[in-house]
Structure formats: structure tokens, C-alpha cells
């Protein structure tokens, strides 16, 4: 599909902006709003230039109120629009949780199919940018646990564009979490045309045979670095980019574990009750007889993400991942 396509070098911000631009051009039901997304183009500039191009009725600055942003999106969606809203940082989405859980996630069911919540809720998340408190958290497990939501996290510019496009075209509500730490860190050739990366499908980034490493978002890059270290140590890693938190791609995970017999999940989140726990549970439930060592979680501690100066203690590093890879393989 992407073979003959015209390509352009993009970072994740470019890719997201490009996906929004294409979809705004295609579908006049799409409305983008949130705090500072209009005139300024968002604090990370993901919506830059879109208000100029599509007008302030379609790309607008809202009052500073996240529940208001998400709640009005529910009404817009019920009336047939397809709002894409931004939470300035994922750490400020909590104010909108009631609208998210009670309405965004439930309206389709409550109205028994009458109203579709074709809403995308974008939010930068994760640590590593020396930010103030509340700007560094990774709460994807909470969204994953809420029935009615789908949760997507890209790790590359290519996927950012393809997944966001799928999210916008989805009739289900999507929590679209953007690993802001790598917003501009990775550049890649991305097709200029529209294309889709399917929601709910993980990607085997590189096949291997000794151990499966599942990661997503900014952790992919760290895991890749760990993979290099592992290779040097003679360990062959199968790296999987989860890409979607829910619905989680069990098949890809299970298939991989059945091959490697070992699994490690790398995530920025607090450890207990997190995504990594779910993956360990899946592996031990559905690939029990194939497991040669305990499924391992390489995650943040069960602590609040430290302020900038302490973050390095909390964040997963290639060394830490490699350390756990080695321990797992030697188990």
C-alpha cells in the first residue's frame, strides 16, 4: 500500500498534524478544540496552522475546563459531529473522567446504538521532558480498564499518522495517547497520502527467539537500545510494539511467547494494576505451558513520578531493560 507513495520526512508532531490536516480536509464534521489548540496551535504545536487553514469554527480555543471539553464533545458527537479534542497533558484529564467514563464510554450502549461517540481524545503523556508535576504521568491502564473506550499509543511518526487516522475514522471513542518525550526525537519517511494503521493490532518490530519484549510509546526506543545490548550478549529479542492498549492484541503476544517462552513488558506506568500486569496475566493464562521463566514487568515504581530531578530513578533505561532481559533468560 505504501510502496509507491510519495514520502516525506516527519517527526511525530508533523505526522499527527498531517493526519489532522488530511482528515479536516476530507470531513467537515470534524471539529478540533481544546485549550490553546487554535491560535497557538497547541502547546506542542500539534495543531499548528490548522485554525488558519480551516477557520475558528472548526479549530478553536475552548475555555479552560476539561470536563467541559469532553462533555461538549459528547453532545457534538450525538448531534453527528466528529470532535477531536485535546487534553493539554494527560495529567489534566482527570477533571474530565466522569464525562469520559460515564458518557464517552457509555453513550453508544446506553442509547443502544442510536448515538455513536466518534470522538478522539488526544493527550500527550509520559515522562522524560523535565516537566513540572502532573506533566509526566502514564495512566493508560486506567483507560484500558474502562469498558467502552479504546486506547491507542503510537511509537513512530508513521504509526502516529496511521493510527490517528484510524482513530478519527473510528466510530468508537478513542483515547489517543501521545508519547511527548519522542514528539520530535524520531524522524522517519512517512507517506504523504492518507493511510491507516489498524487499531487493535500489535506489531512485531523485530523477530527473535529467546525472549519477547512488549513495549509501546516512548519505551520502544529504550527497548530497541536494550535489544542491541542483548544482541551483544548473544540474546535474541523479539520486540513487540503494542500500539493499542485496548483492545489488546492477545494473539500476537501469545504467539510470540509460545515461540520464545519468555516475556518482559516495559512500560512507564506505576507497576501495580498496570498494563504490564495484564500482559503477564495474558501470558501465564494463555501460554502457560510454553513459559520457561516468570513473566517480568519492567515499569515505574508504585510511586508518584518524581519531579524532574528524580525522574531518572523512575524511568526505564536500556540498561534496566537489558538487566531484566538477562535475568529472565538466565532464569
Amino acid at each position, binding site marked *: 500500500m505504501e510502496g509507491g507513495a510519495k514520502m516525506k520526512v516527519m517527526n511525530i508532531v508533523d505526522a499527527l498534524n498531517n493526519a489532522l490536516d488530511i482528515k479536516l480536509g476530507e470531513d467537515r464534521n470534524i*471539529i478540533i478544540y481544546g485549550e490553546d489548540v487554535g491560535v497557538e496551535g497547541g502547546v506542542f504545536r500539534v495543531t499548528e496552522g490548522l485554525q488558519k487553514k480551516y477557520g475558528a*469554527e472548526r479549530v478553536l480555543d*475552548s*475555555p479552560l*475546563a476539561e*470536563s*467541559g471539553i*469532553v*462533555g*461538549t*464533545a*459528547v*453532545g*457534538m*458527537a*450525538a*448531534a*453527528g*459531529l466528529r*470532535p477531536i479534542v485535546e487534553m493539554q497533558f494527560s495529567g489534566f484529564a482527570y477533571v474530565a473522567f*466522569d*464525562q469520559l467514563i*460515564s*458518557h464517552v464510554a457509555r*453513550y*453508544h*450502549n*446506553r*442509547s*443502544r*446504538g*442510536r*448515538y*455513536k461517540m466518534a470522538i478522539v481524545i488526544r493527550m500527550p503523556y509520559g515522562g522524560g521532558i523535565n516537566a513540572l508535576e502532573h506533566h509526566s504521568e502514564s495512566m493508560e491502564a486506567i483507560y484500558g480498564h474502562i*469498558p*467502552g473506550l*479504546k486506547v491507542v499509543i503510537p511509537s513512530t511518526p508513521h504509526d502516529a499518522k496511521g493510527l490517528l487516522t484510524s482513530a478519527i475514522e*473510528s*466510530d*468508537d471513542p478513542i483515547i489517543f495517547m501521545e508519547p511527548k518525550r519522542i514528539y520530535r526525537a524520531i524522524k522517519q519517511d512517512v507517506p504523504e497520502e492518507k493511510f491507516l494503521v489498524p487499531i*487493535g493490532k500489535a506489531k512485531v518490530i523485530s523477530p527473535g527467539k529467546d525472549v519477547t519484549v512488549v513495549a509501546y510509546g516512548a519505551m520502544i526506543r529504550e527497548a530497541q537500545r536494550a535489544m542491541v545490548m542483548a544482541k551483544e550478549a548473544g540474546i535474541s529479542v523479539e520486540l513487540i510494539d503494542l500500539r493499542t492498549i*485496548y*483492545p*489488546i492484541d*492477545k*494473539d500476537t503476544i501469545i504467539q510470540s511467547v509460545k515461540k520464545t517462552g519468555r516475556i518482559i513488558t516495559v512500560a512507564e506506568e506505576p507497576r501495580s494494576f498496570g498494563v504490564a500486569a495484564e500482559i503477564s496475566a495474558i501470558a501465564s493464562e494463555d501460554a502457560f505451558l510454553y513459559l520457561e521463566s516468570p513473566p517480568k514487568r519492567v515499569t515505574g515504581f508504585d510511586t508518584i513520578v518524581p519531579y524532574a530531578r528524580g525522574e531518572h530513578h523512575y524511568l526505564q533505561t536500556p540498561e534496566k531493560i537489558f538487566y531484566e532481559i538477562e535475568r529472565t533468560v538466565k532464569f
Partner: protein
Amino acid sequence: MFDEYNPLDEKIFQVIDNDGKIVNNKWFPEIDNERLLKAYRDMLLARTADLMIVSYQRQGRIYTYPPSYGQEAIQVATAMVMRDEDWLVPAFRELAAYLGKGVTLKEVFLYYMGFEDGSRFLNAKNILPISIPVASQLLHATGIGYEIKYNKKDQVVFAFVGDGGTSEGDFHEALNFGGVWKVPVVFIVQNNQYSISTPVSKQTASKNIAIKSVAYGIKGIKVDGNDIFALFQAIKTASEYARSESEPVLIEALTYRKGSHTTSDDPTLYRTEDEEKEWDMKDPLKRLKAYLLNNNLWTEEQDQQILQQFKQEVDRQFVEAENYPLYKLEDVFEYIYVEMPDDLKRQQNEHENFLKWKEARK
């Protein structure tokens, strides 16, 4: 009207008194007799249904229900003004308003019998389902208002909330977004004096609720919520203003929940009989009936007759709802997503295997 009845002055907009006598000729609305009689019948039907549901509930034939009797005038007046294309955004205590929008009693019964299907309201145009999280629905109304404005539609949104609901942050955000976006939404507060057991005086220190419109730069008015004439006039004026100016309006309708909060509530814990009696004199149905009788538009015989009809109709639809097909396992899964994840299908299959095992064990 908004200037004359500025909520800052604490004035209440009223047109008829407790005996159904006109006290405000200036604002007495033009309503032809047929329409007025229909309004009365609609109020009576809602009240009849309401009281019958309460007794069905006592018989164990339906689950918890929040009765709305005493508040019918607000809801029927809204229904009178509301066009087919207009949107209704309910809270959870607006039986007469749903009916006015075309919802069937059967659907309402299904809802309170514990079927999501009762929440689809397929026979009514442009209505949202019942919303339980207090005040959250007001933001949906504002969002719909945005769509109306964006698509230059000729529509108004009527959104309901209770007095207790005005304390929630979402009330504030909905009216504030509405004011900034300038959307055609009529926010109607049914101030029935209580939020479960909590009186308005513990809910807010503001002089009244209509006055809160000032904080959002929108119009507001405080209306006698048991006076169908005043309500009709106010809601009509508000909706015309909202429609032509694309502006929200806040209406506070003073009323009283004559029944319990829900069928599991015991109002004697927090209300006095005296208070209930006082409000009984202001009963909206009695007042309209008095007006109709005074003006020879209605007779006691007609009243009795139609009451019987209504009772039969309510019961017929109730029994129909009782005979609704069983809730199937797949109903649990069907509408969670438009595109159902494979794993949900697996969970369903897994459970079906268990059910087969269970069946086989018998």
C-alpha cells in the same frame, strides 16, 4: 420579560394564582383551548403514570423509580414549546417531557425494569437518553448547541437539571461554554426544593438560582414552576430568544417534588407535613384544572372519564413492558462498541461454554 423579571430583583414570574385566577394579564399567553386541554391531559397522564409506577414498584413489578409528580407543569410547558426538530436533554425526572417528545410509556417502563432498550427512545426525535450523573448532561446540551450553530440549523436545545445539580462543576462549565459559544440552549432548572434530603439552602447561598445566569453573561428568569401559563410564556420567550439570537437562557422553575426522591427514599426524614400541605395548594395540576373549570372548558365528569382511560392505557403499556423478551447474553456485549473487539467475542463464547456446562449438569 427578562428585564422586567430580572432575577437580581428576586422577582418571580407568575401568571395565575393558586386558584387558577389570572394575576398577570400583561403576560397571559395566547394558548387556544384545544392546546390548553391537551396540556392538562398530558399533565394528568404523566401524573397518573407516575403514581401507578410507584404502586407497581411496591408490588415488586419494577425497580427503583424517581417520581416527578408535582413537577408536570414545567415539563408539559416545555413540550408545548418544543418542536419536533428541537432537542430534549433530560436529567432523570422528566417523565412528562419525554412523553411530550414522543417517548412511549412502555419504553420508560422498560428502562426502570432494567433494560438498556428502554433508553433508546426510538419513537422520539432528537432526544438524549436519561442521564444519571447529576448535571453532566448539561454539557451535552451545549455541545449539541454548537452543532446547531455550526450547521446553521433552526433548532433549540431544552436541557433539564435539578436544584442540586447546580452545585456540580458541570453546571458551571456547561453554562460558561454556552455563554462563550453563544449556543441556542434553554437550561431549565427544576428547583423542587430538595436534592434528595438536602434543601436548596444547603446547596447554594445565592439569592436564587436564576441569578447564576449573570456569571455567564446570559439571560435568566425565575418562574413559578407550578403555573403552566407562566411557564409556557417564559419557555416560549426563552426559546425564541435562544433561536433568533443564538444565545443560552437559564430558567429557574420553582416547584416541589410531591413524591419521594425515588421509591427507596423516605421524605418524612427531612420534610414536614406542613410544608407538604403548603405546596399541595400550589399543585400545578389543580391550578390548571381550576382554571379550566372556572372557564367552563372542562368538567369533573370528563376528568373522571379520561382518568380511567389513562389508567387503562398505562396498565396496558406496563403489561406490554412486562412481557418484553428476556435479556440475552449477547445484549450485554452488543453495543459496547461499534466495532466489537475479538476478545469480547471470546469472553462471550467462554461464558456460553460455562452455560452449556451448567445446563448439562442439571
